[in-house]
């Protein structure tokens, strides 16, 4: 009686597409990286470049291994500033976009402020914030990271909220769904991939902002502070070692966000 399309039920939940990555896509960039480092080493060695201009990778690596504890603890300080900033900024961005997406006048009122925030180099606010909150606490740095995260998250989420399909809107109307039900059932899930696009941009911004904010003062211990102080004491390979730590930290933020994005948007077409 009942006819079923001749398709066997497939695996119910597709896993992360990580397993689909081919070896060549991993090997190629690794090969480029190795060649780059070897070339760098050879260049510094042959051309006899002084360490204050460009230290050799081997010298930097020596410093990394020798100061591993200090780099890790620095990354922890900077990383926690970036993380708190990112959480706060994301919350602000998403809630702000939900409000602006619901009430058109809020969107119009907020547009110039958001544009201004996007244009101001947020990090330049760091010295002002240090004098507001006191130079002994990390609040200023967290706020700097938070604002720089909130802007791209807000803009992308708002764009995502506008992508709700007409048929879904009609459906919700036909079900006489209440405004909050519509937001929860249709609007936020539609916007999710866009939120993550914003987060992906924001993740590296958060680390960069938290790092640069340390250049302008505040408590010591973070990677940014360590970079400036080792450069100031002419220990260039050590400064580069801290920079390496910062790169790893930034990558970590980026990759974790990317994985979260893949997981959450596994049933949606990419925006």
């Amino acid at each position, binding site marked *: 009686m009942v*006819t079923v*399309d001749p398709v066997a039920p497939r695996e119910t939940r597709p896993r992360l597409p990580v397993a689909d990555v081919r070896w060549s896509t991993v090997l190629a960039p690794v090969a480029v990286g190795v060649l780059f480092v070897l070339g760098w080493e050879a260049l510094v060695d042959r051309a006899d470049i002084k360490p204050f201009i460009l230290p050799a990778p081997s010298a930097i690596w020596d410093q990394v291994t020798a100061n591993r504890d200090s780099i890790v603890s620095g990354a922890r300080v900077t990383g926690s500033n970036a993380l708190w900033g990112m959480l706060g900024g994301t919350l602000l961005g998403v809630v702000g976009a939900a409000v602006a997406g619901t009430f058109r006048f809020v969107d119009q009122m907020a547009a110039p402020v958001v544009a201004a925030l996007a244009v101001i180099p947020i990090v330049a606010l760091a010295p002002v914030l240090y004098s507001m909150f006191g130079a002994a606490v990390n609040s200023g740095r967290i706020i700097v990271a938070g604002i720089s995260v909130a802007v791209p998250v807000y803009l992308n989420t708002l764009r995502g909220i506008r992508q709700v399909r007409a048929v879904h809107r*009609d459906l919700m109307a036909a079900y006489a769904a209440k405004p909050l039900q519509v937001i929860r059932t249709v609007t936020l899930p539609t916007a999710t991939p866009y939120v993550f696009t914003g987060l992906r941009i924001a993740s590296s911004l958060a680390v960069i902002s938290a790092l640069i904010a340390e250049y302008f003062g505040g408590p010591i211990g973070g990677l940014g502070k360590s970079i400036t102080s080792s450069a100031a004491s002419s220990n260039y390979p050590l400064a580069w070692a801290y920079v390496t730590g910062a790169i790893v930290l930034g990558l970590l933020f980026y990759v974790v966000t990317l994985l979260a994005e893949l997981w959450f948007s596994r*049933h949606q077409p990419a925006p």
Partner: protein
Amino acid sequence: MNQVVTEPAISVTGVRRVFGKGRKQVVALDDVDLSVADGEFVSLIGPSGCGKSTLLRLVADLDSPTAGTLEVFGKPARRARLDQDYGIAFQQAGLLPWRTVAGNVELPLKLHGVESATRKGRVAELLELVGLADFAKNHPDQLSGGMQQRVAIARALAESPRLLLMDEPFGALDEITRERMQNELVRICAETGAAVLFVTHSIPEAVFLSDRVVVMSPRPGRITGVVDVRADGLAGAHDRTERARDQEGFFRAVADVRSLLHGTPVPTVAVDGLEK
């Protein structure tokens, strides 16, 4: 929900819908009268822009008429929407891609606060009805177009509505899938006994599925005639079988609808022009 229904499922009187203002004004519907009895299957057919989808949206209260009244089971359309007196399916299945098949079917029940155990039973029943019981935990992106549309139909039936509104639900499907879906729809309608207002632009589809086919013409959208398929010698829509497609009455009704669409007068008893 289960009131004794004496009034027609849909009653449309003098409805007019105008889009835009001033010189850009477009009359989508003009002076439309239509009545769909309880349990009756009525199709709206006509070329693009004849206002058939607009009329369905008005009945669903997704849009408001410029003039005239629409009643669903004797209530104003808005009241009927708020009371969830109808189920609806669109040309696009419109499933939520982040929910499973079961999650999509139970959506209306969930939104209206039906408790979890009841929902579960009802969803199993509905998926059985549309032949997708094995796919409950799949996501829509893993299903074919026809299967997605069946999920959408199951969702429309979730609250056992006495009226189904369908806006070209099979429009995007290939011919083979389409005929199979039509057979299933006939079976489902016979099982549920619901009245259906069905928008299509396929003449055979309209004739095969319906008790009556309402033919519309564009600019301004008007009803040009109604073909009573039963008067052409076909069984009532609920008792129809696949074989109806090969019966003489089927071809007679198709010819009637076609001549109404193309505007040539036909001397057939089945065509009684504007109803009422």
